[in-house]
């Protein structure tokens, strides 16, 4: 993985010391809150419902075991012993004290981590495919381009005060696991007719109160022009994006208002001026970054699938885990292991310090000391020998990290909701936990099959409800928590926004509604048909009738 050079280290360490002085002045009363607020936000420090919250970037979701141990240390030393992995592949600490933040940031800087640009109207952490570098369907490793974007966008002077926040996602595979169509810019690698790898450039996707699927403004962009083209897009947005109304300030509104063709024209006009400037990426630079992500020294191994199948016959829990949580690796004899952070006992994405430390040890023992965080709030061990899977599964199970539910009903995305968030209108976590409790039979979970349920506690949609196969949005209705449902959302290469079922349900009926939707699906599905496919085939009517009675 990438290692900081002297410039990266200097920048982060200087920022820690700067923020330390600012925090001291704030505590002494030399800075008032309105002066301090933008300074703390620039370092990822929010004030939430109960306390301060510190958000730390995990660049494109890649973590070393050493970094994971430091995240555990921060959780244990400065917080209440746990952290929360988010849909942005980041981690949040919910109980950090202002006086401790500079020390926590200094500890994180030791392992090349920080909260810079994790808040505010700037380019945020670029997100990517959690299977980057190991996926069988991958054309090129997206981490290389994510890192190039990270370096370009870090403290970019022109883009430090955009109309609104800006999120870029990159996938190097045709199967999109990074939800690139619902980002401000999505980059999807594919090959042109000549067989060369380049990017489809998708702009103006997003969720929140005005969701859009992004629009393609360039079918194929050569990688050498990546930065100049991104810069042209950002420049047009910075110039033309609305600043009078924060709810209309994201790039999606601009793209929607002027149309994709006009937006493309403006970008191309700008691009002409800078296309061959210093922003052009020489192959040598791409190669230099690429070297950081060189494949591990994989051992020549036999395929171990037959032996695994035998172990699975003897142990059905292991078989269920193998089926749901283990994915194919590009190298024979290896596997990608998904670690579910969706057990019954913890909120989605939460992890205790002890689990973090144990997971770091497992990464060292079984996966070249590397981990990934994905946008569905789970973790990945990317490089596990198939022959180690049984042993690894036992160890994960012993720390409650082997729930065999990846991509299934209880693998729920949930924002922190009103249990933690100052913006939320309703709680998300209890609904997720109730659904999880209702679907504890793994036979039933696997019988329902591939399904995403995404829950947000307000219309800002941090829980990605618009693109859940089943989306749940918590709202406040006259002082009561109500939950509205959408069906048919998806964030993959065939992304779609969900359709509202109708009126919402009070909290004590929300999980019954999920069950009604799923019972209806099971009744009407064709052989082998996923929930999403059934919905796309039959539409809303049967679900609406099941939920609300005949029209």
């Amino acid at each position, binding site marked *: 993985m990438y290692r900081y050079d002297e410039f990266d280290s200097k920048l982060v360490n200087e920022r820690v010391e700067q923020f330390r002085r600012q925090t001291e002045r704030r*505590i002494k009363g030399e800075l008032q809150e309105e002066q301090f607020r933008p300074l703390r936000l620039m370092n990822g420090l929010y004030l939430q419902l109960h*306390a301060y919250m510190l958000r730390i970037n995990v660049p494109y979701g890649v973590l070393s075991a050493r970094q994971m141990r430091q995240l555990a240390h921060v959780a244990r030393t400065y917080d209440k012993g*746990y952290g929360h992995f988010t849909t942005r592949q980041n981690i949040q600490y919910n109980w*950090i*004290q202002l*006086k401790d933040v500079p020390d926590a940031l200094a500890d994180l800087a030791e392992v090349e981590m920080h909260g810079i640009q994790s808040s505010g109207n700037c380019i945020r952490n670029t997100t990517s495919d959690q299977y980057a570098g190991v996926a069988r369907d991958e054309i090129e490793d997206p981490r290389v381009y994510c890192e190039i974007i990270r370096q370009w966008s870090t403290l970019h002077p022109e883009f430090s005060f955009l109309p609104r926040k800006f999120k870029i996602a990159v996938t190097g595979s045709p199967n999109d696991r990074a939800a690139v169509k619902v980002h401000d810019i999505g980059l999807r690698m594919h090959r042109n007719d000549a067989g060369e790898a380049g990017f489809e450039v998708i702009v103006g996707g997003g969720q929140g109160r005005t969701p859009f699927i992004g629009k393609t403004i360039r079918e194929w962009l050569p990688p050498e022009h990546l930065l100049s083209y991104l810069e042209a897009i950002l420049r047009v947005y910075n110039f033309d994006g609305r600043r009078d109304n924060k709810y209309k300030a994201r790039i999606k509104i601009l793209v929607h208002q002027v149309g994709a063709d006009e937006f493309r024209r403006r970008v191309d006009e700008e691009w002409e001026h800078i296309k061959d400037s210093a922003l052009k990426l020489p192959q040598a630079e791409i190669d230099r970054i690429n070297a950081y992500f060189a494949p591990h020294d994989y051992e020549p191994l036999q395929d171990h699938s037959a032996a695994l199948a035998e172990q699975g016959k003897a142990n059905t829990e292991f078989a269920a885990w193998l089926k749901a949580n283990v994915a194919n690796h590009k190298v024979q004899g290896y596997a990608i292991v998904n670690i579910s952070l969706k057990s019954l006992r913890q909120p989605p994405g*939460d992890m205790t310090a002890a689990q973090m430390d144990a997971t770091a040890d497992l990464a060292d023992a079984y996966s070249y000391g590397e981990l990934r965080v994905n946008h569905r709030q789970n973790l990945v061990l990317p490089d596990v020998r198939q022959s180690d899977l049984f042993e690894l599964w036992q160890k994960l199970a012993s720390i409650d990290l082997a729930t065999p539910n990846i991509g299934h009903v209880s693998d729920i995305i949930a924002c922190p909701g009103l*249990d933690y968030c100052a913006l939320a209108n309703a709680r998300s976590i209890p609904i997720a*936990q109730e659904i999880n409790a209702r679907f504890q039979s793994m036979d039933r979970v696997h019988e329902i099959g591939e399904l995403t349920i995404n829950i947000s506690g307000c219309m800002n949609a941090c829980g990605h409800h618009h693109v859940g196969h089943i989306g749940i949005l918590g709202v406040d209705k006259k002082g009561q928590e109500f939950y509205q449902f959408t069906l048919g959302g998806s964030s993959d290469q065939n992304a779609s926004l969900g359709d509202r079922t109708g009126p919402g349900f009070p909290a004590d009926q929300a999980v019954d509604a999920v069950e009604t939707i799923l019972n209806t699906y099971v009744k009407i599905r064709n052989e082998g048909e996923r929930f999403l496919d059934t919905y796309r085939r039959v539409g809303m009517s049967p679900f609406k009738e099941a939920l609300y009675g005949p029209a």
Partner: protein
Amino acid sequence: MQMIIANTLVDGFVVFLTDDNGWTNDIGKGALATNDAEAATLLAQAKAAEAANVVLDPYLIPVVIENGNRKPTEYREYIRATGPTVAIPA
């Protein structure tokens, strides 16, 4: 009835204004305003504490007494006063 809720500056935790113009994490020990005049007095004290960089964003919340305990009437403030409604991972 009303109480003042805020976050402390230094640790950020939720606090309530007390009768002796201090701050407590315990809602049971916070000052109760039983009329608008008392509420205005509490709010003025709280705003002074904000200006003095002791607390952040103080405001009044309506509360009722249930079984001898103070309970914010709005569920947002109830959660804010009592903490997350889900178990903290341990």
